[in-house]
């Protein structure tokens, strides 16, 4: 997993509430057995005017120029600014994979759906919750200033604006540690293998029907 320390980048605004994971990456692309290559199909139905198919060369497809990610002023964006309940819907980790593959490192929104929020941390992406009023203000600033950039400082847990405003955000200590160091969660959990075995032995005695029934 990629480590996340400090990210400075152009902000692209996705100005609608309840952006769902079907929107972030439509189902036909979930047929891939790989983890990479989803970037060209990020927001496929909003980004292109035709229907996308897996394995297609997207460079020749007709673009929807009304969609922010197709506009020159947002080229090279690494930070998405979004509305409430971003990432609702399915548990598909293909959504953070597609964002990551496209080059997004951070999503800022007033709220996120639980499963998507969790999936981000397993893929080196940082989802940041800021107050709705701050998000509203950032939307206005992004619209007014071409090339508007934010700096995300994970060690300090703050977002700073070019105007010099600084907004702090919350992140769990464990998730922060993993993001900062790009650590694999499984390796950390396996350090507790003895505790898992002890629990398992006790649980098996208490609830034997939960073991060895599926063969």
């Amino acid at each position: 997993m990629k480590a996340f320390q400090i990210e400075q980048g152009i902000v692209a605004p996705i100005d609608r509430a309840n952006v769902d994971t079907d929107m972030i990456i439509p189902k036909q692309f979930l047929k891939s057995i790989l983890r990479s290559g989803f970037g060209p199909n990020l927001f496929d139905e909003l980004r292109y005017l035709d229907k996308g198919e897996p394995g297609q060369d997207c460079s020749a497809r007709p673009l929807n120029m009304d969609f922010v990610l197709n506009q020159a002023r947002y080229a090279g964006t690494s930070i998405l600014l979004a509305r409430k309940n971003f990432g609702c819907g399915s548990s598909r980790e293909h959504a953070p994979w597609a964002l990551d593959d496209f080059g997004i490192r951070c999503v800022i929104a007033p709220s996120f759906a639980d499963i998507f929020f969790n999936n981000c941390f397993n893929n080196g992406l940082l989802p940041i919750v800021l107050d709705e009023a701050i998000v509203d203000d950032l939307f206005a600033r992004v619209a007014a200033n071409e090339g508007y950039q934010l700096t995300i400082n994970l060690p300090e847990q703050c977002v700073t604006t070019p105007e010099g405003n600084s907004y702090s955000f919350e992140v769990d200590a464990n998730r922060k540690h993993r993001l900062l160091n790009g650590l694999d969660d499984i390796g950390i959990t396996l350090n507790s293998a003895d505790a898992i075995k002890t629990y398992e032995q006790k649980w098996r005695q208490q609830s034997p029907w939960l073991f060895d029934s599926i063969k």
Partner: protein
Amino acid sequence: MAGKTLYDKLWDSHVVEQRADGSALIYIDRQLLHEVTSPQAFEGLRLAGRKPWRVDANLATPDHNVPSDVHERAGGIASIVDEISRIQVQTLDDNCDEFGIKEFKINDREQGIVHVVGPETGATLPGMTLVCGDSHTATHGAFAALAHGVGTSEVEHVLATQCLVQKKMKNMKVEVTGTLGLGVTPKDVVLAIIGKIGTAGGTGYAIEFAGQVFRDMSMEGRMTVCNMAIEGGARIGMVAVDDTTINYVEGRQFAPKGEQWQQAVAAWRDLVSDDDAVFDAVVTLRGEDIRPQVTWGTSPEQVAAVDAVVPVPADITDPVQRAAAERALTYMGLKGGMAISEIPVDEVFIGSCTNSRIEDLRAAAAVVAGKQKAASVTRAMVVPGSGQVKLQAEQEGLDKIFIAAGIEWRQPSCSMCLAMNSDVLPAGSHCASTSNRNFEGRQGFGGRTHLVSPAMAAAAAIYGHFVDVSKL
């Protein structure tokens, strides 16, 4: 000290290790696997040289990419037309064979949608923790299990460690009192709940569905309700154990037998919230107030009673919600103020992990019996949730009722709930669907989904538009 909620009890009994930052290592008793969200997890195991911690905790079956068409299904995996789908289903077989995981393969009688297969085989049991790389895993909470969807990294994590790092959610009680009116089903109950709390209303919470309406509900109905907890933002939806739960589980393939059964039932009786348990939020609805529901927009919260009208965006005060309604109506090709019953229905889909169980098919068959599909409805299909549901429905003659009415009888699959197989809703078509999501493009690029109950979908197939089943 206050008593414990059902969720508190399930959580407490599965804590392996409490961590300083408030997270905990939670033991996972069961993982269900399907072809879409598992290949990268197995690949991760291989790359790291890891083996599954406990093979017997896992059960797999392909469902999303599996054809529902009898001809495309006939030759097993080899006859799947779409090459990428075929590879994905084959990859599940290969991975399960390689790691020794039990799988119901494409044409096994027990194959079906994971959330139908788990409960009906007894792989889902009260008191267990259960995960699956699918957000509709909340379904299994109907058994007083702690069940939720996970991403693929977590699928791999559970395979490798039998645990997940979790933070405890807050407790929400959604109480539905009284009784339901004629023609009002569990699907209408859960849509009404989502309409009330909103699609993010349950975010951060584990929901317990309580009250007389759920006590009176069958297990199939409870599964429908818990299934859609995620559409209200909650990863977890649960119903406490009672006789209905225990009677359903008894005798199933993987359920405990003999002395162990007695021991298990004694333990399961405690899987209820204590009388003095404290919930962080409580929402109450009256069963008598709930009418048959139809979604008009592109979020499950955009829902109305069948005898109501599509809302007028200008009447919505919240600017973000107003903009969402305007966008939804444009996408859906509807006008604010029009009656829900005026919406023409082009296609009908009865199936999905929400509504493809035997009781759902019986409810749909009861509506169509002796009638004919409207000529204006170009296609109507029933896709049973599993081979066992299909077999039982055929033994009851339900297939013949559907076929006689001009409705297609299909093979078990997720099918047009998300259109990963060949069943795709054409652009611009309105579909009365018993599935769980009406997102843009969900059932097909440009497709327009209206979420309804099986009885409402069946009635729409007959009349070509939405009708109030309580008046039939």
